[in-house]
């Protein structure tokens, strides 16, 4: 194993030196080493990426440096962390308080939970400034404003008096960055800073971090699972696996010539936009799902009498169909209504319009009346951990749909469970286990087995691989593909990830604010996008190749209009789709203002 610290240090002194760091976590089975002998140097102005899958110890490293390891469960069991001349491992709580924010700052994955919901943006920022005596109380508001300008937040004066819930995810992350940089730290640790954000916002935040880093000369320790982000941001990379350094190299070298098998597998598993194999031309098979002019609106009630004051137009006049054996992808950013469409198909939300599943109209059906329809359409949710009942063994859960629909009983259920488990690549001996005994990928297999138990014709996969590590993601996608080939299943594949969609989709529907912006065959939409929004989404996808520069993200008219909430009586402008031939349709270019 090479010491990453040996590479690329041009005689300057590192700001942060981690030497032979080990972290242990207490478990019932005794101490478990979650980080084992990690060493690296971080140079001023440099970006070092710690990349790895879940359980690799990358977040533990960040917490250890920040002195935030959860006590008393986790502790540093060996090695040293030096920040300049200060030995951080020897610091107590009060010593650490002077270091955090002032010399080492951290931004977290979820900006909503890292900000105090009861404090205005101004108070949160000035608190950091005053805590470290960066300026006087009188100067603080002006300093806060300057910081918000620095992170390119729109309307910074107004933002100061706002609360976190009034800001979008991207704005919150900008505020977090402003707070982290308030005292001009030497080191910025960014722990998955863009994982919870939409791709276009991710691209903006990454740009911002890079710009600020160039301006201030901050050293950045970037912790991420996303090799695209690594390629885009890092100067050097350390690949972690199960708490050990697997490989450390400058970023170009790592991507060009990975030395270990693990890194090779990891890089191979990353879906790359534009590399997916061709798919056969969409067939003319039977339409199994027909959605016509679907609208879903939620009322926002308020006041004493609970009167409806506004409506969320989550889905507005959407039409599409899915043919037998075909995969239709719904793509869009958070809040675009793609998941709501999935729920409408299952009758989980009230909707208007027309939905036919295998020819059966489902409008106006009560939940009991929906039951026969549900035999044909099932769903696999995003988070396999949350969608399994932790208190029921997986065998019972897999065949539960059959029980509910009265399709089998007794030993037949056991046979069926075993068969389903084999189909999704799990061993039938594991049927009597509970969900927590499985890995994330295995749990998603269990969920797929459950969705298959009714032998449905359509499966809705709602961000079904988004929560999985890339290598596992690839395996699950492969399984879905296999099942499709064997059974002629149709999929409605809901995702925000363009690269994944390219792998699986026959046709793509791009949505924004509840309406279709562009749809058509995969190659037409992804390789010859017509709508500026589609272009923007595609341009924002990080490229897992450090030698290629991501192109700038194009803006388009109406980009600032970002809320599907309208007062009662008002409705969003319905975009009009223009047919470009071969089923490729695009919303007319000029997006009018309401």
């Amino acid at each position, binding site marked *: 194993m090479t010491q990453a610290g040996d590479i690329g240090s041009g005689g300057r002194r590192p700001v942060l030196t981690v030497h032979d760091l080990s972290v242990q976590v207490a478990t019932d089975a005794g101490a478990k080493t979650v980080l084992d002998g990690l060493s690296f140097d971080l140079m001023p102005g440099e970006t070092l990426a710690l990349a790895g899958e879940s359980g690799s110890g990358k977040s533990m490293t960040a917490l250890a440096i920040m002195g935030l390891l959860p006590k008393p469960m986790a502790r540093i069991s060996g090695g040293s962390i030096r920040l300049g001349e200060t030995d951080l491992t020897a610091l107590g709580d009060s010593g650490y308080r002077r270091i955090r924010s002032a010399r080492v700052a951290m931004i977290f994955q979820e900006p909503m939970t890292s900000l105090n919901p009861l404090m205005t943006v101004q108070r949160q920022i000035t608190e950091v400034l005053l805590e470290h005596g960066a300026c006087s109380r009188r100067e603080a508001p002006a300093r806060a404003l300057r910081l918000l300008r620095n992170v390119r937040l729109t309307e910074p004066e107004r933002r100061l008096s706002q609360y976190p819930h009034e800001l979008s995810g991207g704005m919150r992350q900008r505020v977090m960055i402003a707070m982290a940089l308030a005292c001009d730290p030497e080191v910025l640790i960014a722990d998955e800073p863009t994982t919870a954000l939409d791709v276009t916002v991710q691209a903006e935040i990454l740009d911002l971090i890079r710009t600020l880093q160039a301006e201030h000369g901050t050293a950045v320790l970037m912790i991420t699972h996303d090799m695209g982000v690594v390629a885009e941001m890092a100067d050097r990379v350390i690949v972690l696996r199960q708490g050990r350094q697997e490989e450390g190299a400058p970023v170009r070298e790592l991507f060009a010539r990975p030395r270990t098998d693990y890194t090779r*597998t990891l890089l191979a598993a990353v879906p790359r936009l534009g590399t997916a194999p061709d798919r056969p031309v969409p067939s003319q098979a039977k339409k199994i799902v027909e959605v016509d002019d679907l609208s879903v609106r939620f009322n926002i009630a308020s006041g004493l009498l609970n009167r409806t004051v506004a409506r969320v137009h989550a889905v507005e006049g959407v039409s599409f169909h899915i043919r037998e054996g075909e995969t239709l992808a719904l793509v869009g950013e958070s809040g675009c209504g793609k998941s709501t469409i999935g729920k409408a198909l299952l009758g989980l939300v009230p909707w208007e319009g027309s939905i036919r599943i295998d020819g059966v109209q489902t409008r106006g059906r009560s939940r009991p009346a929906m039951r026969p329809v549900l035999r044909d359409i099932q769903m696999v949710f995003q988070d396999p951990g*949350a*969608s399994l009942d932790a208190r029921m*063994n997986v065998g019972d859960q897999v065949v539960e749909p059959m029980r509910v629909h009265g399709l089998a009983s007794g030993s037949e259920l056991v046979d069926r469970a075993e068969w389903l488990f084999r189909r999704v690549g799990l061993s039938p001996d594991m049927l*009597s286990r509970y969900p927590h005994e499985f890995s994330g990928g295995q749990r998603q297999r269990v969920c797929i087995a459950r969705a298959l138990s009714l032998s449905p014709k359509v499966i809705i996969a709602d961000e079904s691989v988004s929560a999985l590590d890339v*290598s596992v993601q690839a395996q699950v996608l492969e399984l879905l593909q296999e099942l499709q080939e064997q059974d002629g299943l149709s999929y409605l594949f809901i995702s925000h990830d363009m690269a994944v969609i390219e792998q699986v989709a026959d046709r793509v529907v791009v949505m924004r604010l509840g309406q279709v912006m562009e749809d058509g065959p995969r190659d037409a939409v992804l390789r010859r996008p017509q709508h500026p929004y589609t272009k923007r989404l595609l341009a924002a996808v990080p490229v897992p190749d450090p030698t290629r520069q991501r192109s700038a993200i194009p803006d388009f008219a109406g980009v600032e209009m970002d809320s599907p909430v309208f007062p009662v009586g008002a409705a969003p402008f319905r975009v009009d789709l223009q047919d470009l031939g071969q089923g490729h349709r695009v919303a007319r270019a000029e997006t009018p203002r309401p």
Partner: protein
Amino acid sequence: MNAALDPVVGPATRPRRSGAREVLRQLMRRPRAAFGMVIIAAMFLAALFAPWLMPADPFEQSFDGLDLMGGPLPPGGVYVLGTDLLGRDLASRLILGTRTSLIIGVLANGIAVLLGAGVGITAGYFGGWTATILMRFTDLMMAFPALLLAIVLAAIFQPSLLIVALVIAMVNWVQMSRVIYTETRSLTEREFIQVQRSIGSGPIRILFRHLLPHLLPSIIVFGTLGISTTVLLEATLSYLGVGVQPPMPSWGNIIFENQTYFSTAPWLVFFPGLLIVLLALAFNLVGDALRDILDPTLQGRH
């Protein structure tokens, strides 16, 4: 694909628990829970066989039971635990009182748990108007002074053990229903319940097979904590004359009858107090263990 990254085949499964017998076996394997089980069993036996276990007549007011000054006798001697102000044998009264206190503790608390959990789950799962009506009613009950309610109810009906138990249950279910309501609300939003809806499961299956197992820990904790408050509430009611009627003893009313003599005859308060503490402790110990045993994520550890 690299199978090592996501091992598909794991080690052979180990045998699983099933049924009440297995739960009992696990309870007895944990020392603290076993201790609790023994105490509960002993108290039940004492209540069941009280007539044969009592050393003397618990109602007989005997001059032998009083000292020369007419005061109660301390523990030791003929009367093992001493006598009360009327010269009755304390040990016998406590043994007979076990019946009252256990019936009240288990019955009243049981009704309160069932009612509270039932209302909470129903309101939490169905939401909407059902929740509004049920929870406003719960708020109303909460705002009403519990003791006053108990006195009114007990005054309307003829005081009897069953009525006292019902009255106490009527007062105690409210907190439980609040807690369970909130918890059900958040569980209902969770994805695995959404999954059930997408499968087509009906409300009965969702409530009993999926929500209830997740609510059980709270129900158990609140249920076991409720035992001691219930026993004490019964004592308060007895003290106010609307509880268990004298001369029928209960642990609670023995304490209240004698509390003013605490400094001169401390045993009259100490022994029944000790029994109440033991009862509550025993249920808490068993409840804690039960909560862990029923949690599959904690299997094989303790």
